[in-house]
């Protein structure tokens, strides 16, 4: 057998694939084919490395060299220089933007230094389409341990003792949930994996499923054994073709090996897993809605109790956990509750995966211990704000969360702290905003989302959120009043207090938190008709700079409403009442004599 002594890992996540990483992998293989050491080098398309900003990423083992922004045409050089001659390709190494130093190992990069990877422990390290690589990294050991060394009650106790809380958003203790399902008596129970990641701007679950699908399958089987279920269902967004493909491959391989299916590893325990597809409804992240959707119905939530643990899919006890929650389980079973509980804060144990995005240098997927501060995440890991702009806010928790400011930056991130400062953990979206972002518009963006995604079953969410959005539009259009700001608070409070499910109970958060933290900005919109970020179109004015205008008449000719007047070779003038702010004049002007002012 040939000894493989070098691995070239290329990122095969959705983000890097969009930047031709698949072609890159093929080119690398091609280049190697003709070389004499082709037998000793293996090209692996792995899951997401997390550092999406600098994708596609190529990592070479065993020396851990970390190349960024690699293009297919770079394949030849990597093979010729690095693989064959052992010389690193410097131009592809990461250069620290602050020190300007070249860094050749991921471990030394700011982006990775503070990360601890439990849920994403295998992402970027293994070929997700090869169960052997998962097994080589302790894969399915936890399942074996569960089946042959532990009783269901022991497993539940371990999960409880670990302090693990559900990563889907609410933070309900996972062990208690399992216990509830285990206690429900029934001839049939289900384990459901919620992979209907709907938060716009969050892609943790997808990255895990794409990068390490077996960890989820293994955890579901462990859960099934613990709660007494023999069937697992993964409810996954249809918009995740790559994750679906990899899950299908993983299920097939796991079945072939005998770690999923009937009589697993000869233990007598049966557990089969199949896929159910979502169809684009954010509310289906709510577990009762998800269950109705799996039953082929409209994904409308129903009141809890009864909890799914008592009466869920087809009225049978059903344990629903999200992808990231499951991905942690094998590690907890392998290394023990105490080990897991040693990471994190008092009430939030372990790590959390975040999708870091927005106006930040290092966009990507990160996993940090609970208790890491926002500052560490944004500035140390995220590399600070893009283009040298000023940090303004960070939005956590997606449409259910809130916008936090400078003063919250040193808050250690955990479930309770975020709630206390008016936001929430949510599923792990973290969007950084800079001075160019208007906070009223930001609140409006999230409300547009909830209005679109509300199921329409209960009145406060169906109508109330629409009214909040209309009021925000009124404000950003320059027609708001101070009374409107009060109204937002009153109506927002009632919507939170009266809505049927988590969607409506949290939908006003983006407004309420920006009212709290950016009150001045709202007041400016209302009283001064001013948007300091220059984002609210109606508050902008196109004006002609008198000193620059040569009177060429180009702007007047292109103006669709006749708002621009002026004689040839004389300074022109824009009548603001007629201007529709289309910007055509500014595009047309060859003398840069039209400017946009707030």
């Amino acid at each position, binding site marked *: 057998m040939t000894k493989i002594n070098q691995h070239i890992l290329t990122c095969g*996540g*959705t*983000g890097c*694939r*969009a*930047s031709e990483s698949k072609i890159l992998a093929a080119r690398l293989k091609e280049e190697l084919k003709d070389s004499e050491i082709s037998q000793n080098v293996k090209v692996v398309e792995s899951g997401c490395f997390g550092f*999406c*900003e*600098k*994708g596609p990423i190529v990592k070479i083992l065993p020396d851990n060299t970390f190349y960024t922004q690699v293009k297919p045409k770079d394949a030849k050089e990597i093979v010729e220089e690095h693989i064959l001659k052992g010389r690193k390709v410097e131009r592809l190494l990461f250069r620290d933007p602050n020190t300007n130093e070249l860094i050749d190992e991921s471990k030394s990069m700011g982006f990775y230094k503070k990360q601890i990877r439990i849920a994403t422990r295998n992402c970027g390290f293994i070929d997700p389409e090869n169960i052997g690589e998962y097994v080589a990294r302790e894969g399915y050991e936890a399942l074996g341990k569960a089946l042959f060394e532990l009783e269901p009650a022991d497993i539940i106790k371990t999960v409880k003792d670990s302090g693990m809380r559900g990563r889907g958003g609410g933070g309900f203790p996972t062990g208690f949930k399992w216990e509830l399902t285990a206690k429900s008596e029934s001839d049939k129970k289900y384990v459901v994996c919620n992979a209907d990641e*709907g*938060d*716009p*701007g*969050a*892609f943790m679950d*997808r*990255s895990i499923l794409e990068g390490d699908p077996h960890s989820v399958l293994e955890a579901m089987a462990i859960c099934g054994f613990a709660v007494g279920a023999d069937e697992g269902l993964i409810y996954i967004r*249809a*918009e*995740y073709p790559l994750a679906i493909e990899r899950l299908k491959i993983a299920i097939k391989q796991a079945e072939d090996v005998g770690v999923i299916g009937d009589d697993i590893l000869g233990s007598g325990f049966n557990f089969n897993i199949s896929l*159910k*597809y*979502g*169809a*684009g*409804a*954010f509310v289906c992240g709510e577990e009762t809605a998800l269950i109705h*959707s*799996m*039953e*082929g*119905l*409209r*994904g409308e939530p129903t009141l809890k109790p009864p909890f799914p643990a008592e009466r869920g899919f*087809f009225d049978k006890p059903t344990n629903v956990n999200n992808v990231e929650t499951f991905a942690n389980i094998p590690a907890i079973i392998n290394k023990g509750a105490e080990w897991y509980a040693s990471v994190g804060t008092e009430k939030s144990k372990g790590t959390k995966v975040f*999708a870091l*995005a*927005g*106006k930040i240098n290092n*966009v*990507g997927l990160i996993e940090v211990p609970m208790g890491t501060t926002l500052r560490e995440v944004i500035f140390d890991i995220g590399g600070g704000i893009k283009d040298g702009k000023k940090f303004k806010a960070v*939005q956590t928790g*997606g449409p259910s969360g809130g916008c936090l400011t400078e003063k919250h930056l040193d808050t250690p991130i955990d479930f309770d702290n975020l709630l206390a400062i008016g936001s929430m953990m949510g599923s792990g*979206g973290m*969007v950084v*905003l800079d001075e160019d*972002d208007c906070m009223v518009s*930001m609140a409006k*963006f999230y409300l547009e*989302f909830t209005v*679109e995604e509300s*199921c329409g079953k209960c009145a406060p969410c169906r109508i109330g959120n629409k009214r909040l959005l209309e009021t925000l539009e009124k404000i950003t259009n320059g027609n708001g009043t101070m009374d409107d700001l009060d109204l937002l608070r009153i109506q927002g409070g009632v919507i939170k207090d009266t809505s049927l499910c988590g969607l409506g109970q949290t939908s006003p958060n983006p407004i309420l938190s920006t009212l709290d933290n950016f009150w001045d900005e709202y007041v400016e919109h209302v009283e001064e008709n001013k948007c300091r970020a220059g984002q609210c179109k109606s508050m902008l004015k196109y004006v002609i700079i008198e000193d620059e205008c040569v009177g060429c008449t180009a702007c007047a000719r292109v103006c669709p409403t006749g708002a621009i007047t002026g004689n040839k070779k004389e300074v022109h003038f824009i009548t603001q009442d007629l201007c529709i702010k289309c910007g055509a004049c500014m595009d047309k002007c060859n003398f840069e004599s039209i400017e946009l002012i707030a």
Partner: protein
Amino acid sequence: MSIVCEKDKLQKQHQLRIKEICQGFGGEHSELINILHACQGYFGYLPAEVQEEIGMQINMPVSKVFGVVTFYSFFTMKPKGRFPISICTGTACYVRGADKLVDEFQRELGIDVGQTTGDGKFSISTLRCVGACGLAPVVMVGDKTYGHVSPNKVKKILKEYKKEE
């Protein structure tokens, strides 16, 4: 490419395909969403005639089929263009200017989001996060992803497809 149904009519071969799909899922009511996925995959969209036939095949009131179709944004009752343009309006893309891309595509093609051009070539839709946030803002045309798109790149992207017949 979408199969176009004549109003209130369904071709025999298409009926058979729907029947096959429904039978493939055991005709179970709980499989409705999977059935709809499969039918949309085949027809390109879900016209009334297809929904009615699904209802007939699995013995479910068509009102319920329609209720489910209209609940999920993935399902569409309008045929999409030959080159469907999807603009990501997830948060990461939004803060990096996705809304301006929406405006620009609408302006260039003279259609709104949710519509298809008269020649059936392009349609515009928005979607929430394709997971390529590092490339924000992102636009997809069919299966091809374009990253770091700015409004002035829109014309160039469209040009690639306009010349194709």
